[in-house]
């Protein structure tokens, strides 16, 4: 027998935060390594938002017009950052379906580590990757006349991290429910596009018919997209009439929510799906 094993398990007796962190860390690192090896995924993740910003955004600008120096592309920029983050994060989380299909999920699930550490690591990995993709969209800001300040960049990164963490956890949970690869594309189409369309990424959420307003209010992404736009607008000299026109802020039961409340909603969403994901992978046969 080799000597090396004997004393170690004594350390593992109870909960060890260091061990949990190491586990989450290695899962996080794997997500990053895989991401850098998938060039096609990076490129396709960039193309779609660029299309939305420069084709749809620029195309609609003559129709929407300009108010107080703000036009539709400036309205769209934070929306496009959000879209990029949302898509990348959900797909990162849902890559658990591939992990299952190719067996690697089993390597993780049979290891003597907690499910929570694995899910947190996965969510952190997805969040990092998605935030990088979202940050890449910020490079387009000068082309549509949005001014970036160091503070704004930090704020956008922070909101993106929170938002993508929540969405990766959501993606992991969805993936835990999907047993077959065939169902994956269908489920994604059914979830992803409605969630993006109803999030306020592409049009202001003010003055909507009641049914549409209600749908946007129950979409958790709404509470992540709005803070992004408010932060971006706050860093520009946006006159009040433009703020009114491109309605920022989400009103719930007549109350306009402060940014911090919106972020708490997103954090709660993250916590909920983190917990559900851990439970989904916790059952033995």
């Amino acid at each position: 027998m080799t000597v090396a094993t004997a004393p170690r398990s004594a350390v593992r007796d109870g909960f060890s935060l260091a061990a949990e962190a190491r586990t989450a860390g290695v899962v996080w690192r794997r997500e990053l390594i895989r991401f850098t090896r998938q060039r096609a995924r990076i490129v396709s993740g960039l193309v779609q938002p660029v299309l939305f910003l420069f084709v749809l955004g620029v195309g609609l600008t003559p129709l929407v017009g300009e108010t107080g120096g703000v036009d539709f592309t400036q309205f769209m920029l934070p929306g496009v950052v959000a879209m990029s983050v949302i898509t990348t994060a959900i797909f990162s989380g849902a890559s658990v379906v591939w992990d299952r299909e190719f067996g690697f999920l089993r390597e993780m699930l049979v290891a003597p580590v907690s499910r929570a550490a694995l899910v947190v690591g996965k969510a952190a990995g997805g969040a990092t990757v998605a935030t990088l993709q979202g940050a890449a969209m910020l490079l387009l800001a000068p082309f549509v006349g949005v001014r970036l300040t160091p503070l704004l960049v930090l704020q956008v990164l922070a909101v993106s991290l929170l938002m993508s963490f929540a969405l990766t956890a959501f993606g992991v949970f969805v993936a835990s429910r999907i047993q077959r690869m065939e169902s994956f594309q269908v489920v994604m189409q059914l979830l992803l596009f409605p969630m993006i369309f109803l999030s306020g990424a592409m049009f202001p959420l003010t003055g909507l018919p009641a049914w549409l307003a209600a749908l946007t209010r129950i979409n958790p992404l709404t509470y992540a997209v709005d803070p992004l736009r408010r932060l971006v607008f706050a860093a520009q000299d946006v006159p009040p009439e433009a703020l009114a026109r491109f309605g920022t802020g989400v009103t719930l039961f007549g109350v306009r929510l402060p940014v911090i409340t919106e972020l708490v909603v997103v954090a709660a969403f993250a916590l909920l799906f983190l917990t559900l994901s851990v439970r989904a992978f916790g059952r033995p046969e």
Partner: protein
Amino acid sequence: MGSATTAAATAVTGHPDSAPAVDVRGLGKRFGDLEAVVDVSFSVHRGEVFAFLGPNGAGKSTTIKMLCTLARPTAGTARVAGYDVVASPRRVRERIGLVFQDQTLDEQLTAEENLRFHAVLYDVPRAEVDARITRVLDLVDLADRRTSLVSTFSGGMARRLEIARALLHTPDVLFLDEPTVGLDPQTRVRMWEDVRRLRDEEGVTIFLTTHYMDEAEYADRIAIIDHGRIVALDTPAALKARVGRDVVHLATADDEAAATRLRAAGYEVQTPADGVDVVVDDGEAPAAPIVPALDRLPVRQARVRRPTLDDVFLHFTGREIRDTGGDGMSFARKYMAARRR
């Protein structure tokens, strides 16, 4: 919690050499009305190569899953590396290495990256990781592919890498579930040489399942499992000795009639798919009295055979092992999935 205290004490002091690596008492698993495993008891000594032999669906995989804490027993107890699989699943998992039928590597990572991932999950001390990686890759002869992406590996190489990975954290018991399914014959031989070497050099106990007769010969002891029950358990030599006698194999014009006539003449007769087996005490002399018993039924072929594991299996289960290769489907699915990606 008397048993937990004992387990903890054992963990600190190390195991006495006499404690079995695997100890199973009255183990059972029921899925609704289906009894997959029934009252299974056995123990595996430290440093032993122990094979579970049985057809697909006999309960091999269910048993191995319970021992690896992946399935909960519905009856009985099992201790692996000194720990109870239900009371201390995490302890058990720390002490075992697992190689499944289906691949569980990340193909987008290199061999070394796969191993480093495993080292963290199994808490291999950081100072030892590099040396262990070099060691296990040497053991399975993959040292030169250390930095290659796993997607460039052949099926045999991938399986060897999985074995290397399962050994990385110096487990007490290595579980191999059908380790050679889907591999070509040459690779299978190679794999068995590896397994024996692991036992000799790493001192690890090896528990494996197989439905290939020829492979079970490599094991120190074999448990034959059928319909969820162990029907025989011994060394390959002892099992053959228990089946005991030699067999005269006949191919006749009418095997059914031949069997009936031989039975009427007082012979012990078995009927495999391709002829009639007559059990005799001594294979050298006996052909002469058999022929009259056939009552002029033409014999196309006759040969004397010493017992093999196939006979042992037939003897204990009353039928031949079906070599259906139940894994073919999932390999095909994986291939399709890989192409779609």
